[in-house]
């Protein structure tokens, strides 16, 4: 034991913490990712949790996982498979083993592999490792017992002590990756600032886990080190997509000098946005938890009329209910952001899982000619920019905007360089001017942008009526005139078409790729990684990822028609591919479509794309 264990340097590693829903796997993952990020690694995390709040303890359906990908350079995904799998009970090993690489190291708590645990996990024999044919290194440690020994004499009861098991795993993983425990200690002291006893107990257990690894070498041949090379200097934090979205709205409201209003109804996986915004009353944020999804959108339309930056947050099933009020905002030309954190459908579908199946709903899912800008966030941190730009477009172009994220980017996290609001573009809503006083009508517009002017109630000289009925373009009175209706529909469509959006960027072999990968929204990281891997293997691949879906970037057709082969890869049955074919003449792409509720697996993408190149 005196012999030092060899340290292997890795470019990046993936660790998956798994256990019962109540085992604190997310906290364990968060601590480890924060520790890694603090020393300058790039991180990407992904929680994979069941829909049940607390499934029966030890059951297969109750397992929740939290995957952390840390890298010396930038990491784009939480990783396909893991280098280290922590399984806190038998059910976790059974369900999560499929995520372990053939070279992985597996850590189990043998105290949670007793007869009862094995039965609950539906093992047939007393030896799960053999039964599953596991060949990898297994660190089998009596974690529960060691935690209890470590906390003996603290006066904690058995249950409270066992709650600290996750910290033992963190300690062991920190040893395995040669991490300094000081950062973890700081994190825990801060997290449990109001419960110092709990903080100290957790810190003791982390040290116990670390020391166990150090003293026994935990039957591994070597430990790892992931150097930090990335890092543009600056200040960073770890942020989830939902939190970044909420921050984007807050930042946009501040920039525009407006109050932020959120009308919402709880729905997985969007609820965290409601939670986050509800906290920030000191920033003047108003949140109304409404009686239903319809009211969530309707109150926001009312708030927009009254002069707020109005947002409503939901997931696909909620968009179905909101669509009528969204359409009201279309015809009234009021600024509104509708956040759709997509999940598996149809109907209630897979509430905690991720898909991109709401695209056509966002673009077209309303009665009448109902043009609406649509933006899709590419990653957890991109949610901030996407929410900011969605708000800017809504306010400056007097239109509802759909912001698409998904369960994967919403719950996943990455390290985020703190933005400087001063560097973000100004937001200038088209307010009425003093010259319009007394002769204002609501549907007169700026001839260049096609945008109408915004008269916020409470100002003398601008009283007017908005409504769901078609209005005369000049007077604003109700009109059923056929020519006027045709004209107004065109005006609303042109207004959206005129919104300036940045060109779509092409990465990789821009000039001579044999294959262009096309995607949108939350699949960015996986598609980028697939391109990167293929190019490193000597292929010539380019990648164009869309954030602005309506209007599409001006260079869309040029980019799509430039390459011999194009594959549109998306987590639906071809909604984006179909939309692009509608917009770009003679565009016939290959398609990669999957609706499994899980993120893409880079290895599968590479395999499929290679076949297309060979086709």
């Amino acid at each position, binding site marked *: 034991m005196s012999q030092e264990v060899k340290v292997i340097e890795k470019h990046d590693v993936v660790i998956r913490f798994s256990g019962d829903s109540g085992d604190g796997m997310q906290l364990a993952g968060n601590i480890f990712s*924060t520790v890694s990020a*603090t020393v*300058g690694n790039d991180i990407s995390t992904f929680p994979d949790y069941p829909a049940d709040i607390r499934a029966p303890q030890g059951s297969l359906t109750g397992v929740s996982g939290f995957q952390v990908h840390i890298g010396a350079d930038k990491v784009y995904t939480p990783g396909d498979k893991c280098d280290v799998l922590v399984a806190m009970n038998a059910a976790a090993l059974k369900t999560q083993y499929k995520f372990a690489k053939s070279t992985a190291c597996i850590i189990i708590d043998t105290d949670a592999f007793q007869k009862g645990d094995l039965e609950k996990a539906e093992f047939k024999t007393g030896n799960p490792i053999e039964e599953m044919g596991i060949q990898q290194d297994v660190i089998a440690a009596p974690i529960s017992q060691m935690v209890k020994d470590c906390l003996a004499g603290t006066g904690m009861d058995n249950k409270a002590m066992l709650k600290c098991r996750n910290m033992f795993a963190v300690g062991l993983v920190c040893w395995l990756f040669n991490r300094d425990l000081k950062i973890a200690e700081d*994190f825990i002291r*801060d997290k449990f600032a109001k419960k110092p006893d709990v903080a100290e107990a957790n810190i003791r257990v982390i040290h116990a886990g670390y020391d166990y690894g150090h003293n026994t070498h935990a039957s591994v041949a070597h430990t790892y080190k992931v150097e930090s090379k990335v*890092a543009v*200097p*600056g*200040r*960073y*934090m*770890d*942020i989830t997509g939902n939190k970044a979205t909420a*921050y984007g709205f807050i930042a946009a409201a*501040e920039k525009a000098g407006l*109050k932020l*209003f959120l009308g919402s109804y709880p729905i997985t996986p969007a609820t965290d946005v409601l939670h986050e915004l509800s906290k*920030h*009353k*000191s*920033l*003047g944020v*108003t949140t*109304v938890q*409404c*009686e*239903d999804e*319809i*009211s969530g959108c*309707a*109150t*926001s*339309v*009312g*708030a*927009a*009329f*009254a*002069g*707020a930056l*109005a947002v409503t947050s939901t997931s696909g099933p909620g968009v179905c209910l909101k669509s*009528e*009020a969204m359409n*009201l905002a279309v015809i*009234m030309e009021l600024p509104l952001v509708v956040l759709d954190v997509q999940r598996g459908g149809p109907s209630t579908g897979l509430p905690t899982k991720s898909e991109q199946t709401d695209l056509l709903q966002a673009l077209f899912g309303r009665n009448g000619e109902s043009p609406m800008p649509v933006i899709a966030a590419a990653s957890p941190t991109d949610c901030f920019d996407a929410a900011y730009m969605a708000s800017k477009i809504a306010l400056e172009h007097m239109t509802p905007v759909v912001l698409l994220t998904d369960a994967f980017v919403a719950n996943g996290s990455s390290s985020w360089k*703190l*933005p400087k609001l001063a560097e973000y573009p100004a937001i200038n809503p088209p307010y009425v001017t003093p010259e319009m006083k007394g002769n204002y009508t609501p549907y007169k517009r700026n001839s260049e942008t096609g945008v109408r002017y915004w008269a*916020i*109630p*409470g*100002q*003398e*000289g*601008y*009283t007017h*009526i*908005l*409504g*769901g009925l078609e209005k005369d373009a000049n007077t604003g*009175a109700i009109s059923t005139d056929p020519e006027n209706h045709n004209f107004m529909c065109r005006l609303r469509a042109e207004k959206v078409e005129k919104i300036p959006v940045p060109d779509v960027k092409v990465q990789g072999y821009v000039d001579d790729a044999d294959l262009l990968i096309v995607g949108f929204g939350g699949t960015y990281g996986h598609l980028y990684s697939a391109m990167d891997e293929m190019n490193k293997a000597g292929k010539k691949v380019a990648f164009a990822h869309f954030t602005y879906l309506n209007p599409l970037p001006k260079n869309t057709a040029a980019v799509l028609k430039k390459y011999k082969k194009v594959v549109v890869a998306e987590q639906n049955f071809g909604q984006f591919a179909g939309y692009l074919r509608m917009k770009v003449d003679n565009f016939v792409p290959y398609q990669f479509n999957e609706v499994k509720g899980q993120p893409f697996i880079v290895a599968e993408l590479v395999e499929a794309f290679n076949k297309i190149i060979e086709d």
Partner: protein
Amino acid sequence: MKNIMCEYTAKDFKKGQPRWCPGCGDHFFLASLHKAMAEIGIAPWETAVISGIGCSSRLPYYMNTYAMQTIHGRAAAISTGAKVANPDLTIWQISGDGDGLAIGGNHFIHAVRRNINLNMILLNNRIYGLTKGQYSPTSPRGFVSKSSPYGTVEDPFRPAELCFGARGRFFARTIATDDAGTVEVLKAAALHKGASVCEVLQNCVIFNNGTHDAIAKKEDRARNAIYLRHGQPMLFGENNEYGLMQEGFGLKVVKPGENGITEKDILIHDAHCMDNTLQLKLALMEGPDFPIALGVIRDVEAPTYEEAVHEQIEEVSSKKKYHNFEELLMTNDIWEVK
């Protein structure tokens, strides 16, 4: 926010030419609303009138205020958002019995429950007029209409009951043909801080003519209705010859001077009583055995939602140390890469 400096007339609130059927109760109500708004004295540009869909929801088009005619059933929710976002606006929410109690029933009860400071007008003609004559949630059981040729087989909502069930703090009733009574009720609604529900009984000359005939005319009202005024004895009849008194758990119509009953036995109206038991009983009275109650039936104080929201914002703001985005960022676990 009363504008004492400026006197308004009904004309200042008028706009356009109403296009309801001649004789429609909406004409009467609109005239009373214009008059009431002038007397209330809040500027047209500090007022918003917000409706849903239906004949009566056309009303905002005839208002020289900020206004929205929205979508079916959602006026209460849209008004809620507008009021919470801008509490300085005085909002009149206009709905019919279909808009407010059928498709919009959920928003109606929740706006009342939250006690949003809205003047919520429910124009009740017990029929769907704009879609040409189907029964509504306030049509009586057995009502024959185009969609119920053999009579309905369902009981109606009684708006007061729904309002009280949602903890309503203000409920008043008037009939559109009674201008003075309507103006009085609307002024009381405007004065009340919180969700003020006004049921306006109104005739549909085309599809449900005569539905409120028992009290449509002044002389009939004297017999078949009772005007409730806070602090006044509950007397009615052409010469106030009838009164209401409590008997057991119920109400009873009596004649003071007969059977040893004196004016002292007659109930005195208490609109400000927190316990709504008697107020509900009054609101649910129906002919022919009882007079229909008109006037302000319930009017009690309670904190309004939007006030509480903004008080909380101020309270939390005074305690929290971050007040802009930059400061918000600093509340997170931050690390520095040099």
